[in-house]
């Protein structure tokens, strides 16, 4: 067997094991209260807080709702799974199996992506059914959801890297990052209308780019050009996964 085929086989095996992790995460964590609270209730309350008493056409809110739902759901899995498993000591079992750390993290990212993509279908369907919103480009909407979900889930596994005595500490940390970014990413107010300092902050938020692609999918205008948004989402995903691998490896080396 050549070195190339051997490597390919190892990758195939590890990918398969990442999918086993996805199955495990879906069974164990999709219905955990913190995921449901931060992933579903948060976006709903934010929507109500934004909508009530404001003369914004409902169809203009739908893309923001989709992006926000995706943001909270896709990034909710990572900060829950690893700290929870560390506390229950099941994480020790995982890392003593022939599954690489990258495969474990890939499993968490895919879990977040699937969870986010599935739940963001709810505001899409409701928006299409109850408002005048319409999908102008299915590929753009799909790209926004998939690439956005991927980068948000990658951010989730990075947030899960620090060691914490309780999973709730990591959930708090993740909200410390997610909530401020929500307000500078053009979800409630278009990026062009927010203060200059916030416009600068929008550049470092993956939500700005995902939100933009989703808006284009609904036929609305976006602050960033499509090509830049897609590129930035890919860069964010790669960068966040790279950083997550590094920090998780460091935590493991310390025996945390």
């Amino acid at each position, binding site marked *: 067997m050549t070195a190339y085929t051997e490597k390919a086989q*190892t990758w195939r*095996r590890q990918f*398969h*094991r990442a999918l*086993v992790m996805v199955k*495990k995460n879906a*069974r*164990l964590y999709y219905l955990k209260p913190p995921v449901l609270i931060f992933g579903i209730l948060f976006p709903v309350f934010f929507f109500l807080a934004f909508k009530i008493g404001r003369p914004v056409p409902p169809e203009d809110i739908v893309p923001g709702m989709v992006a926000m739902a995706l943001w909270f759901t896709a990034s909710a899995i990572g900060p829950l799974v690893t700290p929870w498993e560390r506390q*229950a*000591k*099941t994480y*020790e*079992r*995982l*890392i*003593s*199996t*022939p*599954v*690489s750390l990258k495969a474990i993290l890939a499993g968490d990212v895919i879990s977040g992506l699937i969870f986010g993509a599935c739940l963001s279908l709810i505001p899409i369907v409701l928006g299409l059914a109850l408002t005048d919103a319409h999908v102008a480009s299915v590929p753009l909407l799909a790209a926004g959801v998939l690439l956005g979900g991927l980068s948000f889930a990658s951010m989730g596994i990075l947030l899960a890297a620090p060691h914490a005595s309780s999973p709730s500490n990591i959930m708090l940390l993740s909200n410390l990052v997610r909530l401020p970014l929500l307000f500078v990413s053009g979800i409630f107010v278009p990026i062009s209308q927010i203060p200059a300092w916030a416009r600068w902050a929008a550049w470092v938020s993956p939500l700005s780019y995902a939100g933009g692609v989703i808006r284009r999918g609904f036929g609305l205008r976006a602050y960033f050009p499509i090509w830049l948004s897609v590129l930035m989402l890919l860069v964010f995903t790669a960068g966040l996964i790279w950083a997550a691998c590094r920090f998780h490896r460091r935590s*493991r*080396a310390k*025996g945390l």
Partner: protein
Amino acid sequence: MPTVIEVHKLTRRFGELLAVDHAEFQVEQAEVFGFLGPNGAGKTTTIRMLTGVIDPTEGTASIQGHDIRTEPLLSRAHLGIVPEDANVYLDLSVWRNTMLMAELHGVPRRQRIRDAERLLDLVGLAGRKQQKARTLSRGLRQRLMLCTALVTRPEVLFLDEPTTGLDVQSARLIRQTIRELNRGGLTVFLSTHNMDEAEGMCSRVAIINKGHIAAIDTPDRLRSAMRSSQYVEAGFAEPAPDAMDLEKLAGVSRAICERENVRLYTETPGQVAAEVVRFADTNRLQIVQLCTRKPSLEDVFLQFTASSKVEAEE
């Protein structure tokens, strides 16, 4: 027999604390290797390094020829682990816990279903397949751990105090299962506090103390090596004579008297037994019981770990 685990200068520091200090040992195929030591001696840290949970600070080890540092996935492919605390997934059923571990080890579908059925039956969990692990008692969870470790068909099974705190039935079942599997060629690395368990199961034992490997040998040889801890035990029909008088007998290094019984430590138990008979004749004492004894594994363990206890008390 080929070497299955080879440990070379394995060291782990946690900040200033030296948890394991240049440990060196080998475990051969189909051996039950006991790993004994007091709390905090470095047993679990050694197991955690060998099973890939933490990285060594220095040194290395190999499992089935695969270096734990350079080929971690291959070395872990041969392992099964039963830790002290059964860390099963509490919200998964018994069946799903077993399947998950098999799938993570890449066990083919048909084989994992067949093996899981057989193993769950073997450990008495066949009737609880659909029950969530959360509802199982500690003993049953530990049986499930054993099952999830064995369903991967490991070549080396690491057991970290597997029977601590278990009910008699569960502990016995686990020991019995391990013995049977070992007869079939499974290599077992057993960390335990239970000296009877180590004595009854292990072909060789290592005693680790403060991170150092203090001794490695068969339980028999370790006991024999401690010649000064051999003793003669005698029981009299009347209260035992004074210890000072008994210590004057040839070959006796120390005498302990308790009601009708005496224990005489010696390097020459045969000679001392004859001396005791002579002493009883002279003093018109009636001996009701007389036997020579080698030190138990517990005596050996205490001898090698005594220094740490003294320091702890100081």
